């Protein structure tokens, strides 16, 4: 094996190991479609309830689309039943929860 080929294969293997260990993985994020969300004062209760879920890093609301992005801390996931309960406690209705595009790591707002 040529030295150049060896270096290439080593680099690829190292990258795969890092990805598998989560070092390069972006935190999980979810998009919640919330029905009934129609004013800024409404958004506060939803964000408060979702932020209280264990493992939630931050919450971002797009009121125009009725969408709430929930970004999780590393190692945490969000299931639909938990999200539905939080939205219900805020006084609104969860239409659906789906994985969102990965977002860069950031501190809480």
């Amino acid at each position: 094996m040529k030295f150049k080929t060896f270096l290439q294969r080593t680099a690829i293997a190292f990258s795969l190991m890092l990805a598998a260990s989560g070092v390069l993985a972006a935190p999980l994020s979810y998009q919640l479609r919330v029905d009934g969300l129609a004013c800024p004062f409404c958004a506060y209760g939803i964000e408060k309830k979702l932020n209280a879920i264990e493992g939630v890093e931050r919450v971002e609301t797009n009121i125009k689309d009725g969408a709430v992005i929930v970004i999780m801390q590393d190692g945490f996931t969000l299931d639909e039943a938990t999200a539905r309960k939080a939205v219900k406690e805020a006084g609104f209705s969860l239409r659906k929860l789906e994985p969102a595009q990965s977002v860069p790591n950031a501190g809480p707002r």
Partner: protein
Amino acid sequence: MKTLIKTGLSILCVWAGTAWGAPITFNTALPVHEGGYVLREQFIYMKIADDPTPAQRDMRVSGVMSVLGYGVTSDFALFGMLPWFNKRLDMTMGGEALTRRESGVGDLTVQGRYTAFQRDTPGRTLRIAPFLGVKAPTGEEDARDGFGRLPPAVQPGSGSWDALGGAVVTWQTLDLQIDGQAGYQASREAKGFQPGNVLRIDASLQYRLWPRNLGADVPAFLYGVLEASLAHSARDRIGGADDPNSGGTTLSITPGLQYVTRKWIVEAGIQIPLNQHLNGTALRNDYVITTGFRINF
């Protein structure tokens, strides 16, 4: 006089505790989140005059209405409302100018509101919520000055346990909000005086003036507000007999503005009577100025 004060103050009793981007003068069906609080402070200035009699009565009431709402569940909220009043009555008697005044904490109202119907769709919601409350006689109702016991209209409290109830419907979209409410307050007798019961029908339109276009965030909203209120008060009873100079019907409108953020709301409105059919020599309402804020926590 008593009728107008009572009708004006019933504005503040029947709405008791709005939470969200709600009307200025009455309730809303929008929720208080479970375990959450909403604090509302309203500053009121009310002028009631135009006395057709030689007494030339002129009444001014300023006050602060403190409301704390708590979300027991997402469907059921409790509200406590405690007012503070400064009331002043100027009049002429025997050619002499006379002023009678009193200030103090008024009657505490506790109210429960339950969301009986809720239909949420993307960017809009429709809700119907009946409410039921009780007003406790926590305010002074036997205040006196050098002329003797002050008239009921000048007393901070009523002295009676009263009941109130009704229902409110709210339809909210991203662009506007419409609220409607029907409420009834039944008063009991205290110290020989029983205010007439009050029936109120309210409607409100809030329209988002700014921002005109929404982006991918949660901007603050500036709402233009127009509210209408129809209040009918039965005759008061004094010593078991109807007071012919009390009771009547008032139709008024309230234009106003609201600035709504995630955490707080500031608002202002002025209620102006459009039409007043009052019995006898009851005074006419000139205006009610309301400013205030709400905090979500």
